[in-house]
């Protein structure tokens, strides 16, 4: 991979709009995933009763 930086380092210099899009993107996938994990954890409690 060539090392020349044609763009600013995006992970460090993102605008607030870009940061908001990033948060929204993770919330969109994170909420259903967390709901699914919570369902599994609740169900698995029966194993240790």
């Amino acid at each position, binding site marked *: *991979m*060539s*090392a*020349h*930086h*044609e*763009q*600013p*380092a*995006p*992970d*460090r*210099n*993102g*605008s607030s709009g*870009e*940061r908001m*899009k*990033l948060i929204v*993107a*993770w919330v*969109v*996938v994170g909420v*259903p*995933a967390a*709901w*699914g*994990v919570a*369902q*599994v*954890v609740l*169900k*698995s*409690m*029966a*194993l*240790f*009763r």
Partner: protein
Amino acid sequence: MPGFSFLDREHTIAPPGFNRWRVPPAALAIHLSIGQAYAFSVFNLPLSTLRGMGAAAADDWKLTTIGWIFSVAIVFLGLSAFTFGRWLERVGPRRAMFASAVCFGGGFLVAALGVRLHSIWLVYLGYGVIGGIGLGLGYISPVSTLIKWFPDRPGMATGLAIMGFGGGAMIGSPLAVALMAALRTPTSMGVAATFAVMGLLYFLFMMFGVFTVRLPAPGWAPPMGPGAPVTRIAPGGDVHVDRALSTPQFWLLWAVLCLNVTAGIGVLGQASPMIQEMFPGVIDAGAAAGFVGLLSLANMVGRFLWSSASDSLGRRRTYMIFFALGAVLYAVVPATGRMGSVIVFVAFYAVIMSMYGGGFATIPAYLRDLFGTMHVGAIHGRLLTAWSLAGVAGPVLVNYIREYQIAHGVPKSAAYEVTMYLMAALLLAGFVANWFVRPVAAQHRFDRAAAPVGAPLRTGGR
């Protein structure tokens, strides 16, 4: 195509300032959706009592007939990943993800019509064939894109995406149960309506991934400031997908994946009856369902943790751990059953399942190390045929050996012991295959200078 130009590769290139951490959610949106396939069994019982409304009628479908829906889908997953891998590299991830969303969501709708008309062939066509093609396209479409965005940690990046496939069942199963309960009427089990709603929901969720995914601009490199974690593993020289199949490395990795999956998938499918029969009177059906859920969780978490760890451990060493530790755990699991220790039994299986998932998630980065990034998506697609074989071999091995044991007078609680030892032996064979993996010889590398002028090299962002 007019109106669909937003799907073109050139419209997918990230603008300056784009944050690469927006790409993993795009991949997760696809994989969390198609991972629903692992939860298809939740429909088995309702599908078998459509006419009898909760009790099987004479013209209701048999469970063996229904079982083929999932099998057809997995076969078409492998076939489409094999067939469309090169097309994906040419058109880019967005078009492939869109095709996946159309096929997966559309497959649900066709299957809904099949349930409504009580035509099993329409269900096979819908969820099995069309949906299966969506599974294969969706599974491979974000992989090479993530590897390009995260050259400093390719294992972590692909682990994030493929973790979604492991976690998809955790969403798909309770969602299906809740929808069937809500949509059931006095004259309908609610399955057709549930299929239709899920088809639309998954299509919309996958479209979020379609619109979010971006390819890095040519020449883009990740930030390399202080503290930036960088894998020590450089990608191998680029190898053309057709050439990759003629290398021993491809077939060794094919064996590695096949053996790792075979050892895990058979037990995963039998987890519920297995724990009930190994701990009779201690574990009931409800607790066994909790065990299955925990294994799914371990499968999902292992995909991310092991794949991320491989960035520093090295891919070959990571698989050595999978095979050596997995073989030891399989060999001692029967002893935990005899001891009556449920917690140790569950803990050992959780580790085994984490390595089963880790095997899936680490393989794209392993391919990238050996064959470069040029055709890694297409090569990954072809490697997934190992999964198709393992998907048949694993359950058959476990079921056949168990029935043979019981037929010859072995108590049910001990009937899984031989299976465990066989799984340990399979993992040792995988250890040997992985041992022989070496870097690909220079003669197999793609020679751009020798390629005809104007010939599509294909790949993007380079």
